């Protein structure tokens, strides 16, 4: 199953120091944390927080993202992650679940393009059990034949189910169509066909080649003392032997040239769902914060340019947003919305019109000020819980960003000038070169698509894959 590890939170990527709002712009600081690297290469990040008697774990296995899936076996990394808790050397799947559930804990794992990851949450009093379960599933998964076939069937059925909700799967079609031959095109959760090509042997091999302490980041935030937690983690993880993990070079995605459309026919649809955009930028690009500022104005909040046009002014949709996805190599940029069949043409024209206006008119000083206030004002709740903070620590480590990056985040937001926004729009927001994916009634969409793109591909939603 495809898993999104709170990627949205890194859009802000910061934390606040608990403080009284004695001024309008309190200075924010990542709370102190301890970083340790064990001899076997495992990176451990510990942040004490004592407001609730709970502990949150977040782990990432670098180099075990879906880009590692062998061609034809898309979904391999994902089912491997799904299976970690479905039975270990000493526990059956049911016993593992009983262990987690009995204490009211939570534990899951999943995969995205660049990594596999998981999270867990337990009451402070159950910390030893939590570490036992976590270390067990990460170091000793059993991958029994029975559990393998169960998961594969569930995932295949899950895709059929998901295809009844275009909003849920349009992203998969968009990703595939945009990235073409690049590894990011291949769906992290696999397809109806690729999943059935996956054997128990494949999973065991994948695990063996991609899971190792030296590829792992573990962040823990919550009600513990750092020294004790470090000692406990050593007990459970320090004996895991490091392995040579071959790094995978991810090629830089190339922007699409020209306008290309994909129509996915869903004959019963009363709405047209669409995603439009092109290649964006890598998460670690120095322009990331400035891009965020501009995107807030363009499509990143309720009063954004596209939502203002499509929803607020014309009522053509319930919502229109734009976003830049976060990845090691360049993620995607997309505008996404939906509209009743009858207003398909109008909504698409309007979207492209707003994009054109962004390039022609840019943003104003007043808008820039508003975007900055919005980003800073909305930041607090994104880093409020131990789970969010553990996740943040993991992501900072993964992207090789540091505390200083976060602690100067607001400064970077504030430092974005009008000149910067002009350059950002030109560089990162597409105009003439677009990937356009539409799901709905083909007979309705085709005339509209023909006005947007010369190159139109068609498929049916019931076709396997995306």
């Amino acid at each position, binding site marked *: 199953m495809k898993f999104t590890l709170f990627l949205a939170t890194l859009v802000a990527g910061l934390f606040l120091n608990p403080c009284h709002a004695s001024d309008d712009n309190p200075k924010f600081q990542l709370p102190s944390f301890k970083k340790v690297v064990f001899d076997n290469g495992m990176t451990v990040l510990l942040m004490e927080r004592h*407001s609730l008697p709970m502990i949150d774990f977040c782990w990432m296995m670098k180099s075990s993202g879906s880009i590692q899936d062998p061609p034809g076996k898309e979904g391999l990394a994902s089912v491997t992650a799904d299976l970690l808790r479905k039975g270990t050397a000493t526990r059956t799947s049911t016993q593992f679940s009983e262990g987690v559930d009995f204490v009211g804990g939570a534990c899951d794992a999943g995969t995205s393009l660049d990594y596999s990851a998981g999270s867990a949450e337990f009451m402070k009093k159950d910390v030893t059990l939590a570490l036992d379960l976590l270390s067990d599933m990460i170091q000793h998964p059993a991958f029994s034949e029975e559990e393998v076939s169960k998961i594969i069937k569930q995932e295949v059925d899950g895709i059929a*189910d998901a295809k009844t909700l275009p909003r849920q799967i349009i992203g998969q079609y968009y990703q595939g169509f945009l990235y073409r031959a690049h590894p990011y095109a291949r769906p992290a959760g696999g397809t109806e066909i690729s999943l059935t090509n996956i054997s128990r042997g494949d999973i065991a091999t994948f695990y063996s080649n991609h899971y190792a302490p030296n590829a792992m980041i573990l962040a823990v935030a919550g009600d513990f003392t750092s020294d004790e937690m470090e000692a406990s983690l050593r007990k459970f993880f320090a004996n895991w032997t490091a392995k040579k993990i071959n790094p995978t070079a991810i090629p830089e995605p190339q922007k699409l040239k020209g306008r290309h459309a994909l129509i996915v026919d869903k004959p019963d649809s009363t709405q047209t769902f669409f995603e439009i955009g092109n290649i964006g930028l890598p998460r670690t690009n120095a322009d990331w914060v400035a891009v965020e500022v501009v995107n807030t104005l363009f499509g990143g909040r*309720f009063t954004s340019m596209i939502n203002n046009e499509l929803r607020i002014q014309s009522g053509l949709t*319930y919502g229109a947003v734009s976003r830049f996805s976060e990845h090691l190599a360049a993620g995607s940029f997309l505008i996404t919305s939906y509209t009743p069949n009858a207003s398909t043409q109008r909504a698409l024209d309007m979207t492209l019109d707003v994009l054109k206006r962004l390039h022609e008119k840019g943003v104003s000083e007043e808008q820039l*000020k508003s975007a900055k206030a919005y980003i800073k004002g909305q930041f607090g709740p994104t*880093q*409020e819980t131990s*789970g969010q903070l553990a996740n943040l620590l993991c992501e900072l480590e993964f992207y090789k960003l540091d505390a200083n990056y976060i602690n100067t985040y607001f400064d970077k937001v504030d430092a974005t000038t009008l000149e910067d926004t002009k350059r950002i729009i030109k560089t990162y927001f597409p105009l003439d070169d677009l990937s356009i994916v539409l799901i709905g009634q083909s007979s309705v969409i085709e005339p509209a698509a023909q006005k947007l793109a010369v190159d139109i591909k068609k498929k049916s939603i019931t076709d396997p894959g995306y």
Partner: protein
Amino acid sequence: MNLSIMRWSIAVIAAISLTSSGHAQAQLDVHTCQLTNGMKILLLEDHSIPNVALYFFHRVGSRNEHTGITGLSHFFEHMMFNGAKKYGPKEFDRVMENAGGSNNAYTSEDVTVYQDWFPSSALSLIFDMEADRTSSLAFDPQMVESERGVVANERRLSVENNNEDSLHEQLVASAFTAHPYHWPVIGWMVDIENWKRQDLIDYFKIYYAPNNCEMVMVGDFETTKAIELAKQYLEPIPAQPAPRPVTTTEPEQNGERRVTIHRAAQLPSLQVAYHIPASTDPDTIPLEVLEYILLRGESSRLYQRLVDKEQVAISVSGGQSPHIDPFLFEFYIQPGAGVPVEQAEKLLYEELDRIQTELVSTNELQKAKNTALADFYRSMKTISGKANALGTYDVILGDYHRLFNAPDLINRVTPEQLQQVAKKYFISRHRTVGILVPDTGTETH
């Protein structure tokens, strides 16, 4: 670190601590007061982030409507953002976002809740904006028409384009024949198309009156300042006569009801509902425990039987939710490919029979109790979560203290009680079954 934060942090640790018998005894320092116009106010200071969560719970939902104006409560969710006296059309969101705030709202059968999340520096402004729209909402005819279109669109997206929601609408409509829970919160399409502007004005006057509203605020503010602002901005809004109470009750269902819909889909879908009492009824506590045992986590009875062992379903979910009037305990089951719906249904009933004939194990009961306690702490993680929990408990269950008593009440539940409650409510005569049949043009079952 600031002393007042330290004090609060310590107070929380002391307040939400486990006694030796493992019970939570939380007494968050909630300040309660009432304005002269009848608006009740709950305030909880929380200085962990320089933000505030401000919620207004209006005691109005689809249960207050009647045929002809179904969906009207939900419509206000939209109109409330479209202009009042001081902040004109389209101003509300623009001003709020300029100040670093964001907002949302939701409508249920029982309440309409307006939610604001903003930096503490914007406190006075938000009060000004909220007072403006609560007291002087504009009903511009053009705005009404354009928003009517948006809501019709929303209905299309959420019901007509969504198989699960379509089925659920029919399920609930079949389970409730007389009580206003019969119609969907979003309203019937024909009513959406036919509301008159005067309907809105009349409804708003009574149901959005301050005496019918409760304000809940959690976050980085000073209590005295908050009360001052409430008095300044909200107290001048005049009270109105109390809304007429909802007196129609649902007669006892005396036989299983079944409803089928046909939709384009690759898989069938199953939803089953049993009548249960209102959330204030003490039976909802053992029902909560049954929900944990049957549905919570992969070790739950239904996941183990239907998803894991027999593999008839790819997912199982459901349970009860807070309601002012008696509502439903629901089961949503997604059968896997090639599984006849009847098979999934049969296994569900076998498990519900089992929980009536055999006492649950000590282990299962303790698991539920442990989980309820952990969930209580989870509800305390964020200022937003606290505001929502406090408001929901105070408005729907009548007293926010119930939030803190709940883990203790759950702790007292016995296996015998669970058996009694299962026998009382999971009976076929009180059951409504909804099935979605895939319209693929080929025979699937």
